[in-house]
């Protein structure tokens, strides 16, 4: 799945360059718990989260996660966008809930980690 597909499926806004060529989205993981996210060894992952702070971007950086989708209308701050661009992480946001966004993406063929 590509970033443009995710944006279309969950009506998401893109906050950074999409990096379509460099990094694909193969699986997704939904969590607000960053310690849980750090246990994952999966590549090409989309993180779906309602945790909207700089540590979400830092966690993605440490876990080599290229894509983050913020749910429930959470908008990343300028500082988060700046760090994400520096670390080449794609940020998106949707007004949908975590449950709805996860369900729609799963139904569209995006695989879960577990």
């Amino acid at each position, binding site marked *: 799945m590509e970033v443009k597909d995710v944006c279309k499926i969950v009506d998401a806004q893109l906050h950074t360059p999409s990096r379509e060529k460099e990094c694909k989205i193969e699986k997704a993981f939904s969590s607000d718990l960053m*310690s849980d996210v750090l*246990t994952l060894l999966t590549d090409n992952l989309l993180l779906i989260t309602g945790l909207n*702070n700089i*540590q979400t971007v830092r966690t993605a950086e*440490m876990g*080599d996660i290229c894509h983050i989708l913020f749910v429930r209308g959470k908008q990343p701050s300028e500082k988060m966008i700046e760090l994400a661009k520096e*670390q080449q992480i794609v940020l998106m946001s949707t007004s949908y809930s975590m449950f709805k966004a996860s369900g729609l993406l799963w139904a569209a063929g995006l695989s879960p980690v577990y």
Partner: protein
Amino acid sequence: MHFEFEIEAGDFSNAGYASSQIKKILKQLNLPNNVVKKAVVALFESEVNVIGHSFGGTVAIDVENDRLHILVSDTGPGIEDVDLAMSEGYSTATKEIQEMGFGAGMGLPNIKKNTDYLDIRSQAGDHTEIEMLIHFNQESAKDRQS
């Protein structure tokens, strides 16, 4: 090669800065991706612990022939029961740590999972030292041990 970074207590907005700098260094040294990932996850969890639970400290990393040697040390107040702290789900996290998405009692077990050797030296009222080893060439590491 030796690198050292200071970690300030309570500086939540900069949590991850030291781990990020170390990640850059390890990538520049062309270490395998899985080794870099294990090291930075262990470092990031440690950094969050130092910021949230201690009076401040340092993280020191030595890149040796076949392994990374990491020492995270703080100036207190120490861990009362290390065995209990190692058990998954046990946490003394503050609200600030939980707001960052941490504090579910997974930090130390996650550090253990990502390292080949982990030693936590601490006692209540004293400092804490966390020593970690990550091998990046298992064959040469075994050769050295034999």
